[in-house]
């Protein structure tokens, strides 16, 4: 009986440690910016799901394409229907690893994240600079990178080349809180 009690305690402790190492958010923010000759297009998604494991540095992000909000109502429809085909590929994902996570502190840690981004049914390796810090009980991960639409087979019709940039700037800011399963 004592042995069992000890075992249970041990298991609970493991579970506790395990949970403490994972930080999660469902309100992460990702925006993209397309800077073209005729028109600048900006969209924000503030319902991004992200989870980071501080022991391994692993990070996983899930982005619902329909949650991007635009300045112009028609843009949202065209983005979903004509460009990212969200009826077929409703989500974009990233899974990777934040390097040197062991140096995490309350100061900004400038490091890199390496992983795979999946968008519009296409997968691509991504390595980009990232800033991570611990702020009170939060783990904040942010950064900016560029993404070529052609890499993900997202086509811009010739007539709209002046309206849509071939490369868009993606910025992300994810405020994770301790994950309670």
């Amino acid at each position: 009986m004592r042995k069992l009690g000890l075992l249970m305690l041990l298991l609970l402790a493991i579970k506790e440690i395990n949970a403490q190492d994972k930080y999660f958010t469902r309100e992460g923010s990702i925006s993209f910016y397309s800077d073209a000759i005729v028109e600048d297009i900006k969209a924000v998604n503030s319902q991004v799901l992200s989870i980071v494991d501080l022991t391994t540095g692993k990070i996983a992000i899930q982005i619902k394409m329909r949650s991007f909000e635009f300045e112009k109502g028609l843009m949202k429809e065209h983005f979903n229907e004509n460009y990212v085909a969200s009826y077929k590929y409703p989500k974009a994902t990233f899974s990777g690893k934040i390097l040197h996570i062991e140096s995490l502190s309350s100061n900004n840690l400038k490091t890199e994240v390496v992983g795979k981004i999946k968008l519009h049914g296409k997968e691509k390796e991504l390595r980009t600079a990232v800033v991570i810090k611990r702020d009170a009980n939060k783990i904040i991960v942010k950064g900016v990178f560029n993404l070529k639409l052609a890499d993900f087979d997202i086509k811009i019709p010739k007539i709209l080349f002046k309206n849509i940039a071939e490369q868009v700037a993606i910025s992300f800011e994810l405020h994770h809180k301790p994950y309670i399963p």
Partner: protein
Amino acid sequence: MKYFFFSFFALIIFSKALSQELETILENESKSTTDLILGTFNGTRLLNGHSIETRKEGILEFMISHRFGRVNSGFDNLFGLDESNIRFGFEYGLTDDLTVALGRSSLGKTFDTYAKYRLLKQKTGDNPFPFSVTLFASGVAKTIKDYAPDNKTSFSERLVYTGQVLVAKKINPNLSFQFSPTYIHYNTVSEQNDPNDMVALGFGTRIKISKRMSINGEYYYNVNPFESINNKNSIALGLDIETGGHIFQLVFTNAVSMLEKGFIAETTGSFFKADIHFGFNISRAFQLKKNK
């Protein structure tokens, strides 16, 4: 022994929880949602008639539509291009679901106004809904002085009203259908036997042939047409080209009017005898009010 098995079982569960991948956690945490079906049709018009689509809040759509003369009118008339009926319209989205408009057609010097409301929307996900319903109501007044000098008609006598319940379903990204029961009321009719109230049933479809192009078809069956004219059911076939804020529609139809009462009740050309009018609708959307 009992405890042993229990703890063994617990160990398995816990180790499972431990080895859970981050991706799996996200998948479990992602809330399933209900999404509106977007873009059942490209524009607010199927071809002649209205589609279920309305413009979003703060968008002013300027629309220019043309219907030329009959293509079978010969080279002398440049296959109809010498004649044309034109309609200008300003159509504004008061809210995402309610559009109001003012238009003017050269045919009969006609003014028109309409209101269009998206009542039900097709949805997918947790709480799906199988189709969309939009209500349409319009008032049309002919201002051409085509009456005998001693028989001046009053403004209200020249009014014609139309009501429609537009029902549409996007079957898949490339195929949409619409059913458009229509009621038309003429305040006055020219002949005694002509009905003041008319009922018609519209059928339409959009078949996408590329991301920005589709082939549209539209047919209105008039249940009780005017008896004083040889009314034909209106048929329209066309190509839709959508480029960001513009929509171009190339139309081939036996109707010459771009207003419901005109193409449903007053069409006399026979599509199958090549009494076909070439025409187009061009719309440009201007964002007057930005989100947030």
